[in-house]
């Protein structure tokens, strides 16, 4: 008994340590998280919450062939005890110029549930007719959810992905 009393402060210190670990695990899980899946038909790319945090300033780059299409799936996960409600707006920009609004919707996510939004981007519609054929064209897609803003740069390539450009053989004139 005396030994137990002697170690009382040690146990209390251990309890504090466990409390810190529990806060880290619990608080890390709690919150509202968003994930974006981008599928250009060749390789799907997933951007989760941790990746957004790393690329906050520069956003993400998604390549697509001219004439191709990208399917977007935006998932908002609510890991909270209360309902989450926010307006989600998706817009396209070229530089500072706004090209179009893709989506504008109010979402309401129940406690510990998730909500999914889907939209697609047809490169034929956004590629300008007077733009040089052999040059890449980039547009910025901004996803606004409440105060949070996510940026994806869609890079439209005039050449099909994986296409090898073979130079025309020069005929040998020495013979």
């Amino acid at each position, binding site marked *: 008994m005396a030994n137990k009393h002697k170690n009382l402060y040690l146990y209390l210190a251990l309890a504090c340590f466990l409390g810190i670990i529990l806060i880290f695990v619990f*608080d890390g899980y709690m919150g509202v998280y968003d994930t974006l899946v981008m599928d250009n038909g060749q390789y799907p790319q997933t951007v989760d919450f941790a990746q957004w945090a790393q690329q906050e300033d520069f956003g993400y780059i998604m390549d697509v062939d001219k004439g191709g299409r990208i399917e977007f799936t935006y998932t908002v996960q609510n890991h909270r005890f209360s309902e989450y409600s926010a307006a989600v707006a998706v817009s396209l920009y070229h530089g500072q110029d706004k090209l179009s609004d893709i989506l504008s919707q109010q979402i309401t996510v129940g406690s510990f549930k998730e909500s999914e939004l889907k939209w697609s981007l047809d490169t034929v519609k956004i590629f300008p007719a007077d733009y040089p054929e052999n040059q890449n064209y980039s547009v910025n897609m901004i996803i606004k959810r409440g105060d949070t803003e996510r940026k994806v740069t869609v890079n439209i390539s005039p050449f099909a992905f994986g296409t090898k450009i073979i130079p025309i053989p020069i005929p040998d004139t020495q013979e």
Partner: protein
Amino acid sequence: MKLEYVLYGFGVLFCVAGVGYLTAEYVNYLSDIGKIGSLLLTVGLFTFLGKYFERLGW
């Protein structure tokens, strides 16, 4: 013998620095309430450890 203690010291120092760095990185993801809770528990942790060692006669 003394060299061993110096090496132990370096090992402990690097461990503490590593854990401290990881904690500082992870704290960014915590909410304000979580940060305050963690701070209070850290104060409690070192206080109780201090009392424990005090009782041991250190």
